[in-house]
């Protein structure tokens, strides 16, 4: 999921966070020396940390150039490279586990820049006392996911830290991919008039995880939508240069992702709430938990910004694919101030869609 630094993955265990906070009073503004949970959430604070500290120190690539994977050039060949760390809690959730996420997430980041994923590396950090049989199941899931995506797990590392120093298991995956075409797909490519498509219902993953966490009783089971999207993306790319932007709305949800694109491309986006594919049960759980589905993480969804004249064809390609049956056109790039996202609500009113400052849902992926 992470290009050089487009999404921060810094996180601290909640207890540490609160201990740091205990030294604060209203006379001292929040201690700028503290890393907060919000810095790892993918929202406003994350972006600040990236822009102010991480990127300038490590690399210097401006934020405007950030995509889901880095594109490197070597000897005239284009190569995509990405990394991501997985700290989801609980590690087993309806529809999947941390292993599925770890492979699919990185496969998807490569797919989002238009690359064909080739190989993945796996870094395991486990807490002493973690269950070996749970590890076995997670590893099987990773193999299953890799096979489904057509990638090979080529390298890895395993570390164990003492009890209490990590929460059961954290996984890092890195991935490389090659390009079979010359298309430039990226967050800065959105243009006036582009239609915005999504391949299915929103909020499923976040709600599946939160339902398990909160122990909610549901009439129907909501499953995480965790899936590898490279096959679907390959099909979309056959429409060639009509595909301007691809991005998977993971942490921070559709709202945050579209806001990032609006800023990167300096365009104005209008969403149509009535067109958003949303399962009734997901809507219900969000209402109970006080969540807004627009900000809830997805792990098997891709947002595509495409040239308007070919939008229907792209939509058809999505619907023809098993992962795109509920695909829909949910908005477009419109006239207006760059960087702004607004939504026409269910009843025809309009409201702004902002980026959240920090955590709506901690440890969702």
């Amino acid at each position, binding site marked *: 999921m992470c290009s050089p630094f487009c999404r921060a993955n810094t996180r601290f265990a909640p207890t540490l966070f609160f201990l740091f906070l205990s030294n604060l009073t209203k006379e001292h*503004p929040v201690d700028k020396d503290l890393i907060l949970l919000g810095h790892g959430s993918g929202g406003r604070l994350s972006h600040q940390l990236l822009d102010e500290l991480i990127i300038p120190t490590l690399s210097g690539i401006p934020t405007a150039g950030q995509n889901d994977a880095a594109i490197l050039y070597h000897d005239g060949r284009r190569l995509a490279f990405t990394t991501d760390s997985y700290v989801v809690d609980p590690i087993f959730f309806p529809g999947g586990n941390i292993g599925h996420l770890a492979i699919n997430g990185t496969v998807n980041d490569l797919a989002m820049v238009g690359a064909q994923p080739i190989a993945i590396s796996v870094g395991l950090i486990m807490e002493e006392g973690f269950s070996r049989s749970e590890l076995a199941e997670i590893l099987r899931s990773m193999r299953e996911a890799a096979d489904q995506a057509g990638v090979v797990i080529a390298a890895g590392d395993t570390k164990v830290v003492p009890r209490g120093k990590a929460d059961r298991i954290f996984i890092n995956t890195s991935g490389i991919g090659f390009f079979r075409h010359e298309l430039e797909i990226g967050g800065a490519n959105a243009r006036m008039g582009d239609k915005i498509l999504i391949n299915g219902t929103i909020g499923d993953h976040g709600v599946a995880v939160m339902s398990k966490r909160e122990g909610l009783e549901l009439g129907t089971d909501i499953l995480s939508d965790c899936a590898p999207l490279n096959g679907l993306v390959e099909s979309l790319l056959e429409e060639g240069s009509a595909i301007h932007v691809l991005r998977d709305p993971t942490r921070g949800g559709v709202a945050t992702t579209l806001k990032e694109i609006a800023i990167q491309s300096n365009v104005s986006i209008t969403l149509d709430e009535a067109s958003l594919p949303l399962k009734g049960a997901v809507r219900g759980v969000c209402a109970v938990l006080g969540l807004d589905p627009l900000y809830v993480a997805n792990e098997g969804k891709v947002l595509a910004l495409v040239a308007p004249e070919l939008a229907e064809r792209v939509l058809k390609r999505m619907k023809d694919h098993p992962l795109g049956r509920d695909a829909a056109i949910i908005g477009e790039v419109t006239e207006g101030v760059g960087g702004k996202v607004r939504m026409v609500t269910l009843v025809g009113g309009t409201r702004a869609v902002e980026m959240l400052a920090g955590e709506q849902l901690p440890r969702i992926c």
Partner: protein
Amino acid sequence: MNGAFLEEFRNRELVQGLAKQIVRLAEGRETPLTFMEVCGTHTMSIYQYGIRSLLPDGVRLISGPGCPVCVTPVGYVDKAVAYARQPNTIIATFGDMLRVPGSSSSLMQERARGADIRIVYSPLDALALAGKDPEKRVIFLGVGFETTAPTIAGTILSAASRGRDNFFVLAAHKTIPIPMSILSDDPELAIDGYLCPAHVSTIIGAEAYRFLAEEHKVPCVVTGFEPADILQGVEMLVRQVVEGRSTVENQYRRFVLPEGNTKAKELLSRVFVPSDAAWRGLGVIPGSGLAIAPEFARFDAEKVLPVTVEEPREPEGCCCGEVLKGKIAPINCPLFGTACTPEQPVGACMVSSEGSCAAAYKYGQ
């Protein structure tokens, strides 16, 4: 009767039709109309559905002190913090109170320091804690309006019948009609009408607002919180103004009776007595609070459990008071979005999920 008809109250066509009628009714007026809502659910619904964008320029909706957490004064938080620091004490509270800043600390910070603070969804859960841990004192933070107060009344009665001697309530319940009368008399605000609360009205009944309409000459419409309800409520208010009437009308008749919920009101009068109450931003309002009746004084934390607090200090620059009175919009507070954000709130209006500032921050202005 299936649940689908409830969806009708979010029907786009109905909402658009009501909006058009409002435009027609309000046409040609020289001065704009200002209507105030005093219900956290209304605040959120208005933002979420973009209701203001459907109203003509001549009809303004402003938010009043409808969020119980937001109107809880700093001194109350200081008392809760002081209790939290005492040994063998469990503080049980609704989630929103956790991050409200007191003079020098908040409950969240105290939890980081090791205080036993539990979030409960219902006051009965707090009573259950007292049952599970008879060695500890459980102090429930009783914050809320007339919708919540009866639930605490019921819980106190339950505590009494079980002979619990380790359950206490730090009562800060408030009633909404009297502050409404004070605000309606404020010439600076020039309120032309009230959208009366949804949930509170199910308890106190539509007739509770009659004195406002007849003595204070302010049109009142008891309104539901779905978008069509709100639009219809506004339409009825505009109609009253245009026709020169000032009365109480009930738009939410499907859930609100003229006399309200008799059983809940009985619970209230058994366990509580009217008292003076301190409101953040509005000061002390006589008769606007509910104190625990002498018969149940043994459950009243303030009477039975000694605690010392210093003189409460309002945070500097915080404009919660003016926002709560409806005098300024959140964006006009100099701290809004800079020093005061949901992550690092200075005042209560930014903390609560029903607060005007939190809503304005999330949904844009």
